[in-house]
């Protein structure tokens, strides 16, 4: 009886020892495997996210690059000759008519470009209900001189895409604007003003 009990005690201890050892080894393998797998999955996820980002940026760039060419060319045309205000407005309208991917197009002149009584001057053509509409934008409520689409390309002296925004008071739509600073020499009577370069900003809104 006593021997039986001793044998049972020994068997129990042996089983417990073997089981515990196996459990520890399996746990260690499992943990190691988990860590390695996690690192691999994270690395792959990061790679996928990067590739997806690059791919999406390329797609967006493709659209934006094609639109950028329009104001880039337009600015060259305006700078090439001393067009009158009416002529420039006519060309502006044609830009919108001939380019359906554009929501609207504006020329934004510096303060008092056309006289000391007219602080704002920005003729703007835009699409609405299938038609091309026109208005002048710029007043105390729509002070475009401090708006990103005007100010940033002016201060940085190169074309810039704006962040998307809701253009309340002008286009009245969510849009992003590509603006190109352009320069024209303006003579007044026989005096060439010291700041004779007046800058105008064609503004194209790509909705």
């Amino acid at each position, binding site marked *: 009886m006593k021997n039986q009990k001793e044998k049972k005690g020994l068997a129990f201890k042996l089983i417990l020892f073997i089981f515990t050892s196996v459990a520890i080894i399996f746990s260690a393998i499992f943990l190691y495997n988990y860590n390695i797998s996690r690192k691999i999955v994270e690395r792959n996820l990061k790679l996928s996210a990067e590739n997806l980002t690059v791919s999406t940026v390329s797609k967006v760039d493709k659209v934006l690059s094609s639109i950028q060419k329009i104001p880039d060319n337009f600015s060259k045309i305006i700078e090439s000759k001393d067009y009158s205000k009416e002529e420039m407005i006519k060309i502006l309208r044609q830009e919108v008519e001939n380019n359906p991917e554009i929501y609207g197009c504006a020329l934004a002149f510096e303060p008092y470009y056309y006289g000391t009584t007219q602080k704002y001057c920005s003729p703007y053509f835009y699409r609405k209900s299938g038609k091309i509409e026109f208005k002048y934008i710029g007043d105390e409520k729509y002070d475009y001189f401090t708006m*990103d689409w005007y*100010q*940033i390309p002016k*201060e940085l002296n190169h074309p810039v895409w*704006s962040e998307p925004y809701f253009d309340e008071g002008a286009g009245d739509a969510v849009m992003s604007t590509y603006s190109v600073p352009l320069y024209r020499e303006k003579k007044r009577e026989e005096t060439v003003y010291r700041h004779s370069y007046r800058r105008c900003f064609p503004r194209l809104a790509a909705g």
Partner: protein
Amino acid sequence: MMADINLSFLKKIHWETFIFIVMAIAMMSCNGKMKKESNSGIKTGIVASGNAGKLREVTFLPYWVTNAQFAGYYVAQEMGIYKKYGIDLKIIPYQPFITSTDLIRDGKTDFAALWLVNALELEASGADIVNIAQLSSRSSLMLVTKKKSGIKTLKDMNGKRAGIWSGFELQPKALFNKYHLDIKIVPIGSSNNLFLMDGVDITNANWFDEYHSIINSGYNPDELNTFFFADYGLNFLEDGIYCLSDKLKKDPKLCADFVNATLEGWMYAFNNPDKAIDIVVNYAQKAKLPANRIHQRWMLDRYKDLYIPKGKTTINTSLSEKDYHFVADVLKQSGLIKQVPLYDNFYQPVKR
């Protein structure tokens, strides 16, 4: 053939299990009951002790769009705190191009939130408004530079370009004059993009708003240098509650009730920020405005810092004569006001 089983052990298990289940059910139902009470406790408690009479219709005008800057008002309205004080409040939505100063001058709103600077200009222009509670205890205005620009001190700003909000040049100009700094001011709108794109070296910002937007644009705080106006002797106090003087004379109780309800709303918002943000975001969504929860939470936390002075636990609504004259004198020296309104006429706090 019959089989008798010794059930004593089984019975013991059953009893223990039974007791456990009963206790668990009891605890769950108590918890549920308590939750129900706590959820409804505030509202029912408020309604129970509320004004049994007719609610007085009152309008309030914030000076900017729906966001956590005005959390106290939205929270007080949503939680029935204004109703507790017998007020049926309508918050007038912010409209672009129509300033709060226009509406309060024309009497189109009963109460408005204004910065002290704007209120002083309005008062000096002839509008008979009074400050019935000064909520903010310090200025939130700051200048921000990038560490990579090398601008570490005010002196380093000499000769640099600063993007300053168009129409809000007073405080920055006062700072630049005080420290004899020659800085080119570039008027900017509400966006930080010119600064982010290195179009200007310095930009102004509110601690609770634009500073956080700059961080969210990809800059870490340790990549920026900040210069709080309050640290350089230009602590212009900001938010206060204002009404026309006539309103206060005709109905001082209404004014007191509005202020007290508002303060209660603010304290609730500070003590229950998650709930407050839920309410603010809900209001913003109704107004079809974007609302980023993280940004709103930052805003609310900063407002707590601005409204509750260090070392205190409640909002101090007093406007000291010293703080008042400090701002008024700068306005007068800048030519923005011709006369400094009398302090006692301007600041008429309600009973709390």
